[in-house]
């Protein structure tokens, strides 16, 4: 809390024990739930005494590993505290395998957790999630995500190409525009690709440079390569969320999800 006090954030997460995963023992899980609540109470007390944090919002962290009963207990107890939002953690350890993690593996756990939470406070779900997983989490009631996914995609030299514009007009039997969410700009097929990475994309990279140039930059390990990829990937990821919000408002989240299911189920080419 000394550190938080010095940073003067708008929102901050209370210190928590989220070090559980699907293999954790009941005893470990229970301890993480209890400890997290102890920390939360201390943080709340400290926040109330701090000038810097008077107007800051505290986020309570929900634990419970992969145990339904502990999840319910953690959610119930945390919801009783004066927190402004909830971060749902303790499912995995955020290592390199996180990208393979599927929301479907924790669907029931999320459902019982969110049932205990008030409607008018946001729910954070951090972790590396592709568009399809995001939609599944949103359907369960999650609101806020983070941007590790575009970052790891950039780090491997890839660019997002999933379609955000024509999905509404497509019939279920129409094939999607792409076979995957991303393409690798290190692939030699882009060496003389004198077109933008993603047709119609309005980001700085696609409006100004060709895939061939970005291929060259990555091939020569030039810093500008990952800069341009990062700009593109953030741009596209943020656009995804805009389109997602519109889809929810238009009651079309199921169709939006099906669109991504179709991309995901395409046979994958070697990248």
């Amino acid at each position, binding site marked *: 809390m000394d550190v938080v006090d010095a940073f003067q954030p708008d929102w901050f997460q209370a210190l928590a024990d989220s070090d559980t995963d699907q293999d954790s023992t009941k005893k470990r899980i229970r301890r993480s739930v209890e400890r997290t609540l102890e920390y939360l109470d201390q943080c709340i007390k400290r926040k109330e005494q701090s000038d810097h944090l008077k107007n800051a919002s505290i986020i309570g962290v929900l634990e419970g590993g992969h145990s339904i009963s502990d999840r319910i207990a953690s959610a119930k107890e945390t919801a009783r505290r004066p927190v402004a939002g909830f971060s749902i953690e303790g499912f995995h350890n955020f290592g390199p395998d996180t990208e393979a993690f599927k929301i479907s593996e924790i669907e029931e756990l999320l459902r019982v957790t969110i049932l205990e939470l008030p409607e008018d406070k946001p729910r954070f779900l951090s972790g590396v999630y592709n568009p399809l997983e995001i939609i599944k989490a949103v359907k369960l009631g999650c609101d806020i995500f983070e941007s590790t996914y575009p970052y790891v995609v950039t780090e491997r030299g890839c660019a997002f190409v999933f379609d955000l514009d024509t999905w509404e007009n497509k019939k279920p039997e129409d094939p999607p525009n792409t076979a995957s969410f991303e393409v690798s700009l290190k692939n030699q097929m882009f*060496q*003389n690709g*004198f077109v933008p990475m993603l047709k119609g994309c309005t980001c*700085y990279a696609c409006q*100004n*440079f*060709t895939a*061939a*140039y970005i291929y*060259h*930059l990555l*091939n*020569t390990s*030039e*810093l*500008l390569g*990952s*800069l*341009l990829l990062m700009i593109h990937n953030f741009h596209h990821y943020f656009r995804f969320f805009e389109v997602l919000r519109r889809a929810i408002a238009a009651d079309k989240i199921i169709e939006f999800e099906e669109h991504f299911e179709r991309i995901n189920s395409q046979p994958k080419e070697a990248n």
Partner: protein
Amino acid sequence: MFRLIKKRMNMTDLTTEKALTFHIKAECSRTKARTSVMTLPHAVVETPVFMPVGTQGTLKGLAPQQLDDLGCRLMLGNTYHLGNRPGDNLLEEAGGLHEFMKWKHALLTDSGGFQMVSLLALAEITEEGVKFQSPHDKSDMMLTPEKSIEIQNSIGADIIMALDDVVHSTVTGPRVEEAMYRTIRWLDRCLKAHQKSHCQNLFPIVQGGLYPELRKKCAEELIKRDVPGFAIGGLSGGEEKSEFWKMVTLSTEILPKEKPRYLMGVGFALDLVVCVALGCDMFDCVFPTRTARFGVALVPTGQLQLKNKTYKRDFQPIDSSCSCSTCSRYTRAFLHTIVTQEPVSCSLLTIHNLSYHGARVLDLCDYSDASN
């Protein structure tokens, strides 16, 4: 093959139809310094000018727009590297380097010859040209004057350099004379091979090591050829400063006043000041951009090694008199936390160092104007 030819000519050029015009605005009364305006197909450039080095078709960590915002109108690309990757055929297909890297201002490419000095262990120099072993895939590459010009024609820079036989400035003996005469012969081969003199300006390079008679002979020969400008090469390689500036001033005595003089590979701020006073107009050096990547910021009083703990709590900008985007936003303390760690620190320091170097040169312009 579909070839795009982009030519943006200044209005005055339509009457003269030259790819380069050079107008001296003011001359210093006490030194050989002058301020001028050089008009090239892609830009109007005020001289003296410092050219950043974008070796592989990019300035490390900067988008072209950022370079544009710094006021840069002329930058370098390296023929040896670009000829390798992405290759001259691809650049031809892309419509030239301007189009490929989306740089709308002027470009200058070197001949690929400097690599001879730096990669000498792998190079064999004959009258025909230079045989390299590519450091990337160990394949053999032969760089003849004709091939150098061919690659540079494909790249499409506003100014291109003749392939010269450059020896390191610390080399002595008959090799220096041999290289000097070969440079002249190679220049004539370059001129013959050059296909685009209407939109690309070929500069020859004065060689001759640290031997005044050789430098003199070389310059006298070069000025007999019909070329739009000249370069002075083979210096700034670690020779004694007292020898260095003598060779520079000797060259500028002979080279015609009404054409630009490009001093290759120079340099540090002090060298810029001295060589402007000796009559040079164009400079290039990797120093400001390379040192940025090591976390060093250039300031009027010297250098700041921002990794140093001294800056941990220093909440000033790098230079409070600097108006670059880095100095208007970030403190030394913040930069201290990210230098050599986060890629963005490279971009931030590069912006500042180029702004600094550019500003130093502009100061010299003001001085030259004022003292007239």
